[in-house]
């Protein structure tokens, strides 16, 4: 079954490349593994079959890079409302997939955006991007396994 939301094959490598460039600049390391709760997939399949589970994963993988980019752009432009809107959305979408680390980081950034604390956002934002980078291959693997 082909992804019917958008060409992840195009969007993700670009985004992942940007993350790798940032990681190299920072000299940091991405740790492997992420606390993804597999029961989420069972729940989604119970609610709407394999199709719902696949589509939820695909939408998350498609939209999260856009939201993270919106946060970066918002910070550069001092537009804290846009920053807050993007992480607010990420908070619920990551929560629905029980990606607890991402959900908590998004909530933290939302609070900081409300207080317009630009410098304080940079660390959690890096952590949020890293958490997403870690979970991408895991979600892609589940997505493809659901297809079989």
């Amino acid at each position, binding site marked *: 079954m082909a992804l019917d939301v958008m060409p992840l094959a195009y969007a993700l490598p670009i985004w992942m490349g940007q993350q790798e460039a940032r990681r190299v600049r920072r000299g940091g390391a991405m740790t492997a593994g992420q606390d993804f709760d597999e029961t989420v997939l069972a729940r*989604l399949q119970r*609610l*709407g079959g394999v199709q719902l589970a696949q589509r*939820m994963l695909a939408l*998350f993988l498609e939209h999260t890079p856009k939201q993270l980019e919106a946060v970066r752009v918002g910070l550069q432009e001092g537009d804290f409302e846009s920053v807050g809107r993007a992480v*607010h959305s990420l908070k*619920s979408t990551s929560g629905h997939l029980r990606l607890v680390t991402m959900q908590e980081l998004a909530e933290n950034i939302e*609070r900081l955006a409300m207080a317009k604390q630009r410098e304080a956002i940079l660390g959690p934002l890096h952590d949020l991007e890293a958490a997403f980078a870690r979970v991408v291959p895991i979600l892609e693997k589940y997505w493809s396994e659901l297809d079989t």
Partner: protein
Amino acid sequence: MRKIAIVEDNPDNLLLFRAMLEDLYEVTTYETGLEALRGFQDDKPDLILLDISLPEMDGTEVLRRIETDPVLRGIPVIALTAHAMAGDREAFLAAGFDEYITKPIIDEHILLDTIARFLA
């Protein structure tokens, strides 16, 4: 079948909420407040699930317009929001929402039980 309208701009959330509800209710979805207010005139719902952080017009303003519309006034409106900080619940209920449910919804029974209470 009773009618539920969901006003929510996030496609992930819309997809999930529709899946939770569509076996039990006739579900209509809207992505903006303005679109919803127009749609309600032609297809009046029995209950509205209303996101707060909507583009163009936020959920609180949509609620205000519902309350001042003679056709729509009285429809139960449930705030469905990721605003879950201390004091948010009280603030939304004080603003006129009939109930408040936070996203993410990990247990769909919270949503289903709340809706059933209003549509009983």
